[in-house]
């Protein structure tokens, strides 16, 4: 019989399913980092201000420091580790690399996940829309300019890639 202080939950993270036994007070961020070893998600302020711990739950960006792991039971989580495919950087990661959208890199996972959600909804955002979408993420190094440029560059790369997909496939 299970100790009532602990709950068993099932999380799908980056496509893989995990069974975890956690205290209800276990933050999603800590479950990802400590229990699953996914340390790409960084914890900055731990009260929802800095955006560093942003992950996607069912495709929507959330602060993983403001959600309990038990609340993600049965849901799909995507972290920064889920962006690259087979060792190949996601276009957003590639663009952050090329435009130098980072210095120390601590805030980068949060920026990437927030920008990922933005491009899912709005593949060709204006600079103003990018700034608004990223307004909840703090970067103390770059001054933001290169981050904005990286997201613009990634949106063009994604648009370019989909434009070159041969027509008639899969129809």
């Amino acid at each position, binding site marked *: 019989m299970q100790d*009532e*202080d602990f709950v068993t939950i099932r999380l799908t993270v980056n496509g893989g399913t995990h069974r975890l036994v956690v205290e209800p*007070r276990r933050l999603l961020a800590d479950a990802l980092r400590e229990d699953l070893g996914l340390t790409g998600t960084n914890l900055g302020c731990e*009260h929802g201000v800095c955006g560093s711990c*942003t992950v996607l739950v069912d495709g929507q*960006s959330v602060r993983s420091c*403001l959600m*309990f792991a038990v609340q993600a039971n049965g849901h799909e989580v995507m972290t920064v580790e889920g962006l690259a495919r087979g060792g190949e950087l996601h276009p957003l990661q590639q663009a952050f690399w090329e435009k130098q959208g980072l210095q120390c890199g601590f805030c980068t996972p949060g920026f990437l996940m927030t920008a990922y959600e933005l491009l899912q909804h709005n593949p060709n955002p204006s600079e103003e829309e990018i700034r608004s979408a990223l307004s*909840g993420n703090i970067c103390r190094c770059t001054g933001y300019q290169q981050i904005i440029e990286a997201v613009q560059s990634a949106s063009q790369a994604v648009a370019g890639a989909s434009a070159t997909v041969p027509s008639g496939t899969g129809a």
Partner: protein
Amino acid sequence: MKPPKFRYFAPRSVEEAVALLVEHADEARVLAGGQSLVPLMNMRLAHPDMLVDINGISELAYVRPWDGGLALGAMTRDATLERDTTAAARLPLLVEAAHCVGHPAIRNRSTVGGSIAHADPAAELPAVLLALNAAFEVRSRSGSRTISAQDFFKGYLSTDLKASELLTELRVPGLPSKAGSAFVEFSRREGDYALAGVAAVITLDEDGTIADARLGLCSVGPAPVRPQAAEALLRGQHPGDEAWDAAATAVITGLDNPPSDIHGSADYRRHLASVLTKEALASAAERAERNR
């Protein structure tokens, strides 16, 4: 920073949630979007013995037409309200204000009911719902009661809601088709708590004078503010700078001790309240003129 231990319950229905709250009124807190409560718990400023997580109660998440206006389920996320086409058509002021709540990742979780029940004086929706003459339905074991926004907000983080009650629905009456509305706020960074914010609703008469004016302010006192003296001054006036200046003066005269902190002094908040009142009124009047 880790939250203190608590017992966790995730009811699937309103009945189940109410039963838990009635039984554990002294120790339980309701967990809605968690965007205010969880930071407080992480910092150990709040340490509830028990959480009743209502995120699994799908019957509480809806935006429905109601009596010319809208009925919002308490668990409606701000991100949902922000994109709702019925809300945009009926009460664009709500959509405009929902867009100002926090950042996108906050709005994906934060709920309209949570904002009302938490009653942070800096929050947008309490001030806007006060201006819109909204009423809130709360459920308890003995049934339900409806509380007007005017009676609901009691003071700093304090409302008429009892620990054994669950806020279930926000009812917002519609506006006359000729009304115009606007919400404006000022914050240091987009999405941060506003240093001051103003909601304005203006209805114009056939002759272009102001038939009705309503205002709601956030972040300028211990609770959201409805400056009725300023509203009364505006009725019968012609829209324009003279009327806006008089209303703004009445607004700041009536303010009772705006907060003073590292982000802004009380005087600065009074100044912002004045500037933003004029801006919101001018914008609402312009929209009312277009609807006329």
